[in-house]
């Protein structure tokens, strides 16, 4: 009798276990479905754009929401490439973003160093001034800056967009860099000073090298926002030869309203540089964006 009861309870337990196992499996399946649907929602519009960019106008208008191009229209790309100044836009974007990064990092590293390491009365007040800048929307300075630049005679030059880019990238950079610099031990400079190095030398050859990780974070955050910036470029620049990629892209589309395939091709070309960078550095970029968000 006893063994029979034990046998029954074992069987019951096994049944219960298999039920929890299958319940667990169902939950896992549900979770996977949800996550997969989200992935499709996020990626399908981009895939759709890629297919769109290889189609003819009539295919785009008559086709289903999912359809491969009948023949891959590489002409769309040659059209976009030859009638837009793609390479020139890219060159301009590289120049503008590169200079913005250099100036932002140089300026903010120096000021962050002074704020966190020097003994002086106004350090915190200066830091606070920079922190207010994080909250100021860049659009609200467009008109005054336009008037100022007109008087400086630099409107419609790359300088007129690099200046606001740097000015509005500094606050977050100062925040991230000073957070890091505050945490390093003071013995580092003391030993350098004892060896007779000047404060400038110490800054350049000792402090800057160890600050590389947060500088990477600043670089990534600034790169993403400046490379993609549209409204300032569209307001301050007008010469075709000076346009950056997002602005050039938008004005190309404005002119080519009827050639859908070429518009698609130009959008793909416009997204390409940053997507390539993302494929190469995806982990660094996601880490940098999280670090920037956490500290911002």
């Amino acid at each position, binding site marked *: 009798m006893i063994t029979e009861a034990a046998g029954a309870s074992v069987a019951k337990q096994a049944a219960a276990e298999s039920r929890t196992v299958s319940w667990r499996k169902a939950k896992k399946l549900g*979770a996977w479905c949800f996550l997969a649907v989200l992935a499709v929602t996020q990626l399908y519009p981009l895939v759709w754009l890629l297919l769109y960019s290889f189609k003819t106008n009539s295919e785009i208008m008559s086709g289903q929401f999912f359809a491969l191009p009948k023949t891959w229209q590489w002409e769309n790309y040659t059209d976009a490439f030859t009638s837009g100044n793609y390479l020139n836009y890219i060159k301009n974007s590289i120049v503008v973003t590169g200079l913005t990064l250099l100036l932002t990092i140089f300026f903010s590293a120096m000021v962050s160093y002074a704020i966190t390491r020097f003994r*002086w009365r106004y350090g915190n007040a200066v830091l606070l001034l920079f922190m207010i800048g994080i909250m100021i929307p860049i659009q*609200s300075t*467009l*008109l005054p800056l336009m008037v100022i630049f007109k008087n400086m005679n630099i409107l419609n030059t790359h300088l007129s967009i690099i200046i606001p880019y740097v000015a509005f990238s500094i606050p977050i950079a100062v925040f991230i860099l000073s957070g890091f610099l505050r945490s390093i031990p003071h013995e580092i400079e003391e030993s350098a000073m004892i060896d007779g190095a000047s404060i400038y030398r110490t800054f350049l050859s000792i402090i800057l090298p160890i600050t590389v990780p947060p500088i990477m974070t600043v670089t990534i955050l600034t790169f993403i926002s400046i490379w993609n910036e549209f409204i300032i470029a569209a307001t301050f620049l007008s010469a075709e030869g000076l346009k950056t990629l997002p602005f050039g892209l*938008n004005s190309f589309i404005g002119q080519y309203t009827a050639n859908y395939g070429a518009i698609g091709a130009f959008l793909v070309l416009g997204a390409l540089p940053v997507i390539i960078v993302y494929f190469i550095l995806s982990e660094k970029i996601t880490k940098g964006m999280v670090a920037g968000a956490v500290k911002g």
Partner: protein
Amino acid sequence: MNGVLRVSKGTITVFVLPCLLFYLAFVFAPILVSVYYSLMEWAGMGDAVFIGLDNYIFMFTQDPIFWPSVLRTLYISLFSLAQIPIAIVVAILLSRYVRRPNFLVSSYFLPVILSVVVIGQLWKAIYNPASLGGMLNKLLTAAGLDSWTRTWLADTDIAIFALCFVILWQYIGYHVLIQFTGVQNISSDIYEAASIDGAEGWRADRHITLPLMAPVIKISVVLAVIGSLKAFDLIVVMTGGGPADSTQVISTHMYLATFNSFKYGYGSAISTFLVVFCLVMTVLLNRLFKRAEEAIS
């Protein structure tokens, strides 16, 4: 806390002054200039006429676009907050059920790094009428939901929601990434201890994951609110504030009044309001968080 290095005033000047002057000249001075312009009537050419607070009085009492655009700015912020609970659920599911989550996280994140021009133009094409190849309307037709098809961006009741969805689509990946990093940083020992006490699954989430993630959630909230103020570029690219001003927010109203209607004085008044609005929102958010923190502890 201040530093300890004793340096001369000259050295401090060399380190601080270039950056500080540059920053004050191109961030703070323009705001002050803008406050000054807001007291003028000025079309860019000719002389500006001092009119006192008339621009503000017009803005608050007569401008039919102003208050709806303020409300819409707040709506977009609230709507953006809706992505945070979704992101938290996704983050928890990822950490619990997916062994190699990196591919999924990076694919959710991909739209975040794209320019608003690419995103805006892509979604304009997606929202197009079916006859122009719009994907959404074609999808609805294929699913037998013909009656749901719309001219999404040309419909005054719907355009703003169509825009909100694009904002959600672009930024959800950022919030998932932040929340996922938050979940991963919670030590597994805590869950083991909890499971000994009988707390597992969603119960453990409610009593352990959520409270421990409070700081990360705060980051997402701040980003969502600030980000929704940045919806400006997307609206300029996709609808330009139309149709019939139904997608105007404070910043687009300011931009169009200034650069399309050349009402420099009036545009500056809206711009001054925008700066004050952003600062007040920041202070309010901080107060709210302080109160929430006190309530938790």
